[in-house]
C-alpha cells in the first residue's frame, strides 16, 4: 500500500533522513521506533507532504506522493496525527471533529462516524461544546486521533501518541487504534520512542536511528528485544544495517 524508497530529507545542512526505505501493507500495523532525533517525525511528515524530500520516492497505491500538497495527500486517504496534540484550541470539540469532513466535502457519513468514534472516546462527548484548548493532554490526544479518522482515511499515521501521557491512557489509545483497525480495515503506521509496547501492538517494526533504518523485522521474531536494543542504542552502527530475514 505504501512504499517509501531511498527517502532523504535535510533541514538546511542537517540530514534528517539519509535514504530510508519502508513499506506498509494493507491492514498492517507497522511501527517505527527510535530515539529522539532519529528522524521518525520527519519520515511521517515527508509522507504526509509536510516537508519536501531531497530525493527518493513515496508511493501510495502506486501513486507518487512526492511533490503533492499536504492537503491533497490527506484527501487521498492518508491521515497524519502529528506529534504534540495539535488540536484547534479555540474551536470546540465538535468543530475540531468535523473540520476534516468540511475540507473533503464528503459529509455523508460524518454524523454516524462521529457517533461511532464517540463510542470509543466517551470523554469527548462530555466535552462536546468546550474549546479543545481546555481539554487535558489525554483528551486532546483522543481528539486528534478521532479527528484524523473523520476523513475516513485508509492509512493512519500517528506520531508518538504516548508522549507525555499516563501509561493507562496510552493503553487505552492503543487498544482503541487496534479496535478501529479491526472495525474499519485501517492500516496503521505509528512512531514511538519505546519499543516494549510496540512489540504487542504492531506486526512489524523498523528501528530508525540517525536517519537510517538499522533494523527491521516481524514483531514475532523480535520478541526478546535484544536486537532492537542493540540497534536502538547504536551497538551495531559500524556494521551494515541488520535486517531480519523474515521481513523480506
Amino acid at each position, binding site marked *: 500500500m505504501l512504499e517509501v524508497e531511498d527517502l532523504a530529507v535535510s533541514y538546511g545542512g542537517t540530514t534528517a533522513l539519509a535514504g530510508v526505505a519502508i513499506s506498509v501493507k494493507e491492514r498492517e500495523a507497522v511501527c517505527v521506533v527510535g530515539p529522539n532525533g532519529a528522524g521518525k517525525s520527519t519520515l511521517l511528515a515527508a509522507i504526509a507532504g509536510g516537508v519536501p524530500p531531497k530525493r527518493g520516492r513515496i508511493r501510495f497505491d502506486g501513486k507518487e506522493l512526492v511533490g503533492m500538497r499536504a492537503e491533497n495527500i490527506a484527501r487521498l486517504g492518508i491521515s497524519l496525527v502529528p506529534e504534540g496534540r495539535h488540536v484547534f484550541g479555540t474551536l470546540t470539540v465538535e468543530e475540531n471533529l468535523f*473540520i476534516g469532513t*468540511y475540507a473533503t466535502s464528503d459529509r455523508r457519513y460524518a454524523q454516524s462516524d462521529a457517533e461511532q468514534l464517540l463510542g470509543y472516546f466517551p470523554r469527548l462527548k462530555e466535552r462536546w*461544546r*468546550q474549546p479543545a484548548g481546555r481539554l487535558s493532554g489525554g483528551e486532546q490526544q483522543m481528539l486528534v486521533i478521532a479527528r484524523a479518522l473523520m*476523513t475516513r482515511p485508509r492509512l493512519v499515521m500517528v506520531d508518538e501518541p504516548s508522549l507525555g501521557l499516563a501509561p493507562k491512557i496510552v493503553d487505552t489509545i492503543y487498544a482503541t487504534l487496534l479496535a478501529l483497525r479491526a472495525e474499519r480495515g485501517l492500516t496503521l503506521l505509528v512512531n514511538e520512542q519505546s519499543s516494549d509496547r510496540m512489540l504487542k501492538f504492531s506486526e512489524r517494526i523498523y528501528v530508525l536511528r540517525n536517519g537510517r533504518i538499522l533494523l527491521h523485522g516481524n514483531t514475532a521474531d523480535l520478541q526478546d528485544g535484544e536486537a532492537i536494543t542493540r540497534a536502538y542504542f547504536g551497538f551495531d552502527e559500524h556494521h551494515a544495517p541488520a535486517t531480519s530475514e523474515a521481513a523480506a
Partner: protein
Amino acid sequence: MTDTAQRRFLRAALPVLALLLGVTAITALVALLGNDEMALTVTEALVRLIVVVGLSVFIGNSGVVSFGHIGFMCIAAYAAAWATCNPMWKQLMLTGLPVFLQQAQYPFWVAVAGGAVLAAAVALVFGAVILRLSGIAASIATFAFLAIVNNVYSNWDSVTAGVSSIIGIPTVVGPWTALAFALGAIVLAFWFKGSRFGLMLRATRDDPVASRASGVSIVRVRLAAFVLSAFIVGIGGTLYVQFLGVATVDMFYLQLTFITLAMLIIGGMGSVTGAIVGVFAVTVFVEFFRFLESGVPMGDLVLALPEGSQEIALGIGMALILIFRPKGLTGSRELKLPGLGSSRRAMAPALTTTEAAARS
C-alpha cells in the same frame, strides 16, 4: 428533534440579535437625542464599524494581520466617487475616466455595489498572489499593497484628481443608512465565522500543520475570507465618501489604517463582538480627548491638552491593552447570553436525532 435544531439556531442567533439591537439602540439614542455634530460622529463611527467588522472577517479568523485593507476602502471609495460625483465636474477634472462614468451620474446603490465588487475583485487577484506567504510575510505584503494603492491614486491625475479632492459627491449617507449597512456587515461576519469556510480558516489559525493534515487548503480558505472582507471594507469606503461628499487619497492611508486596527485590537481581534466593542470604545475615547484638546474652562483659565494628544493617548491605550489584555476588551470571545449556556449535555439530543434518522 426540531427542538434541538431550533435551540441550536437560537443559541447561535440570539447573541447576534442582541448585538444588532445594541448597535441600533446606541445609534438611535445619539441620532435622536444628540445634536447635529453627534449625529455626524455616530455616522462616521458606524462607517468605521463596517470597516472594522470587515477587517475582522479576515484578521480575526485567519490570524494574519492585514495593513492593506484601507487600500481596498480607497479603491471602493474612488469607484463610488466616480459613479456619483457631478458629471460637469468629472468632465472638467477627471478627463481620463471612461465615458460611461464621465458622462453619467449613478444612484447610490450602484455606487455601493460597484465599489465593493471592484474592491473584492482586486482582493481576489492580489490575495491569490500573496496569501501563499507565511503570516508575517503576508502582513508586510499587505502593507506594500496599501502604499502602492496610495501612490497610484495620488499620481493618476486624470482619473483621481491626484492629491486634490474629488468634490461634488451627493451626501446621502446619514446615521440610518450607515446603521443598516453596519447591521448587514455584522450579520455577514457572523455568518462567515460559523460557516464551513470560517471554521476551516479558524483551524488554520490555531494550527496550520494539523489543518493541512485534515485536508484544509490554507490558501483557499484565506482567500475566501480576504475577498469577503475586502468587499465589506469596500462598502465602508463607498459609504464614507457619500457621507463626507469629498474623496481624497490621504483619507485612506496610515492614519485610518492605524485607527481601524487600534479599534480591532482594543476590542479583541478574534471576535466580531470585539470589533464592535472596539469601534465604540475607541470612538468615545477619541471624542473625549478631542474635547480635552479643545479646552476645558476651569475658573478663569482654560485647560487644554496640546493638539495630537488623542493620537498619543490612543497609542498608549493600545499598548496597555496589548500588555494587560492581549486578547482585547472582550477577550476575543463572542457575546454570550446567560440562560442559553453552552450546555455540556447538548450532544445527547443531537445523537438521538441522528439515531432516529438512521433508523427510519
